[in-house]
C-alpha cells in the first residue's frame, strides 16, 4: 500500500518500490494537474524518483528526508 491515489494527488507513503513506478507514471500522465504528497514517504526506489524528476508533479508536501527533499526541490 505504498501509493494512495486520491482525488487531487497521489500520496506516497512508507516504502515505495520499483514496481510502483509504472502505475505512478500512468496515473500522473492522466492527471490534468498532477500532484504528489510525500509527507509520509520514508523511502523510495530510484525508478520512482526518476518518475518524479521526469514528470515534475507538484509537491504538495515534502518528504521528511532532507536529501530527497533537496533533490526534488533542486530539480
Amino acid at each position, binding site marked *: 500500500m505504498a501509493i494512495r491515489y486520491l482525488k487531487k494527488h497521489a500520496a506516497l*507513503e*512508507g*516504502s515505495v518500490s*520499483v514496481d510502483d*513506478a*509504472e502505475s*505512478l*507514471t500512468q496515473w500522473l*500522465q492522466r492527471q490534468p494537474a498532477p500532484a504528489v504528497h510525500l*509527507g*509520509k514517504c*520514508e*523511502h*523510495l*526506489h*530510484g*525508478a520512482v*524518483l*526518476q*518518475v518524479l*524528476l*521526469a*514528470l*515534475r508533479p507538484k509537491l504538495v*508536501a*515534502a518528504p*521528511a*528526508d*532532507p*536529501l*530527497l*527533499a*533537496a*533533490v526534488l526541490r*533542486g*530539480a
Partner: protein
Amino acid sequence: MNQTELLEQFVIEARECLEAIGARLLDVERDPTNQELLNDLFRSVHTLKGNCGLFDFKPLERVMHAGEDLLDRVRHRTLDYSGELADALLDAMDYAARLIDQIERSGRIDDGADAQSIVHAQALRALFDSVTAAPVAVVPAAAAAPAVAVSQAAPDWLARLEAALLAAHPAATAVRYLPEEGCFFKGEDPWRLASTAPGLLALHVDGRQAWPEGDERAAWDCYQCNLDIVLLSSAACAALEQHFRCVPEQVVYHQPQPQPQPEHQPEHQALPLPLSTEALDADTDSDPAQATLRQRAAQLWADQCALLARSGLSAGTVQATRKTLHGLLAAVDDAASKVASAELDAVPDARLLAWVRQQALQDQSLLADDPAADPAAVLQPADSMVSELPQRFEDSSGGHPHKVLKVSQEKIDRLMELIGEMVVAKNSLPYLAQRAEDVFQQRELSREIKAQYAVINRIAEDMQHAVLQVRMLPVGAVFQRFGRLVRDISRKLGKDVNLVIEGEDTEADKNVIEPLSDPLIHILRNSLDHGIETPDVRRAAGKPAAGTIRIAARQESDRVLIEISDDGAGVNPVRVRAKAVERGLIPADRAALLSDDDAVQLVFLPGFSTVDTISDLSGRGVGMDVVRTAIARINGGVDLRSVHGKGTTLTLSLPLSMAVTNVMIVESAGRRLGVPMDLIVETVRVHTDDIHHFKQVRTTVLRGRIVPLRALNELLALDAEPLANEQGELAVLVVRIGNQNVGLLVDHFQGASDIILKPLEGVLAGLTGFAGTALMGDGGVLMVLNPKELL
C-alpha cells in the same frame, strides 16, 4: 598503574610472543602447509608489532613489521616457506630478543640500534621483494579497484555543486555516478546507493538526457535509468570506492586538491564535518579544544548516519546508536543540541535516519506546513530480543571456558614465603599450649589452644598445597627451547634429527623444573654428538637416515618421570669398561666381572669421558656425573639404559614438588641439623661396645645386618667426636642411601618437624651435602642435610 608496570607487561608479552614465534617456526618447518600454524605464527608477530607501536620502539617495530609483511605473504600463499626464510626469521627474532633485553634493563632501546634493525628488516624484505624497505608506518591502502578514475582537472559536472560548498570543504571528494540504463532490471537502486554514501555533504540528481516533453512522455519507459548523480563527500576516497565497489565503471571521482597519503593516521579517516555549518560559523569562541571537539563530534555524527543508512539493522544497533547520539549531543552541549536531545527519544526508529541527517545539514526547515510526524511509524523495529544466550559463541568444547591469570613469578614467591612463615609460626602453638599447662597451670586454655592449632594446621596445609599447585609449571616450559637447540646442533653436525616431545603438560614444582634445564641440555648434546650417527652410518646400519630423540614426561604417584631416549649408537660396554680401567676408575678385574648393563653405568663415574677428542659442542666432554649430581640436588635420580647399536634411554625421576618436608632434627657438635624423614629408616641407640672398628670404618649390627656407621661430625668436617649418653650409647640415625643402610652418628635426636625446605641460594648454592635450609619456629635456621651427597 604507571609506566614501569606497562613496560614490564610489554616485556612479558614480548617474550611470550618470541617464544611462540620460535615454537611455531619449528612446527611450520615440519608442516609447511598447515594454515593454522601459519596464521598462528603471523598473529604472534602481529601482536608484538602492535605492542611496539604503543611505545616508541622504532627499531623493534621496524623488524617486526618486516617479519609481519613476510609472514602475511606466506600465509596467503603468495610466498613459499623455506629454510632460508626460517633462518632469517630466527635471526631477526634473536635480534628482537636482545632489544627486549635492553628494554627490560633500561626502559628503552640503545642508541645506534636503528642501523642494525634496518639490516635485519631488509634481510627479511629481500626474501619477497627486490625493492627494499617499505615505510615503517602504516599506510592506508586504497581499495584496489582497477577502473577507478580520479581526475584532477575540474570536470564540467563539478559545476553542479555549489561553489560555496566546495570552498567550504576543500579536501572533499566529488563523485559523479552515471548508473547504466538497465540497472533497474539488475535490481540495483542507484538512488539508494548514492544517498547512503559515507560523509555526504551534498547530493544532486539530474537527467542524463533531457526528460521527455509533451508527446514523448506517453512513450517514455520509466524503467530505463536516466539518472545523472553528482555528490560531494567528506569521506576518504577509499571509503567511497568501497561504497561504490559494485559499479566502479559507472563512477568517477574528483578531488579538487590532491589528498596527501597520511603516513600514520591514528584517527578515523573521514575528515572533519561540522555538525552544523551555522553553529561553527556563528561560533566566535576561538577555543581550539572546543573546535576540535565539535569537529570530531560531527565526524562521529556522520558515522551514525552511515550506520543507520545500512539495511538489516538490528534493534540492538539502533538502541546503541541512540545512546551514541545522546552522548554526542551531551558533549556538544549547545542550544541546538539541547533541543535535539529533548526530541531524540520521541523520534521513531523509522524516522531516525532522516532526523539524524536533518540535524547534520541543519538548513532551513525542510518540513513544509505538514502535519506533525505520525507517531505510529510504518516500520516497526524488531521486538526486543529474548534474553537467551545464543549457543553460537559459547566455548565449542562445551565446557566452561578456562580462565587463566598471568601472575609474575615474584608474587608467587612472595606468597610462598608468607605461607612458609605461617607454617612455621603455627608450629609454635603446641609449645605454647604446653607452656600454658606446665608453667601457668592453665589446662583448659592449653586444650583450647591445641584444638585451635589443629584447625589452623589443617588450613595452613591446604593453603600450602594450593600455593604449591600454583607454582607448578608444565615441564614443557623447559622443553620448549630444545627444538631450536636440536635443530641448530644437528645441522651443524650434518645429522638429521627429529625431536619428539611428549607429555609436556606434565607439571612439577618450579624449583624442580628450572634446575632441569642444564642437565637436559647436556644429555641432549651428548645424544646429538655421540649418540645419533650421521645419515650415512645410519643407513649402513639399516636405520632410517633421520635419527629420533624422544623426550617423554609423565607423572607417577609423587614423582615426575622424564625419559630421554634416542635411536642412536648406544653406549658400547666394551669401550666403557676399557676407558674406566684406563682412567684408573675401577680395577681391571672388577671391570671384567661387570655385566654389560652394569658396565654401561660406569659412565656415571666422575672423570669419565667416552670420547678422545673433546667436542667443542659439549665443552669439556661433559660427563654423566655432572648430570647425575645436578639431578640429585633436586632430589631426583638418573637411570641409564643402553643397547649398543640400538640406542640409549635416560630416565630422570624427580619429586613432584618441593612440598613440606618432614625432617628429623638432630644435634651434632652443638649444631642443629635436619635430615629428611623419608630417608630415615630408624633411630636407635647403640652401645659403644657394639660398635666394631675395621680399619677406619665403624660398623654395627642391626637386625642381623651389618650397618656401616659414619660420624656426622666427620662428614661435616666438624672437629668433634660423637657424644655418648650416660649409658655409653651413641645415637645412630639410620638412613637409606641407594640400596644401603648407613648409620649416622649424632649427638642427640630432637624430634620430627614439618618444614618448608628452601634450596640454598647465592653463595651457598654450591655447597654440597645440604638440601637446603628451613626457618624454625624459634626463628633459627635449620640446615637440612642431603645425606646422599654427604656420603
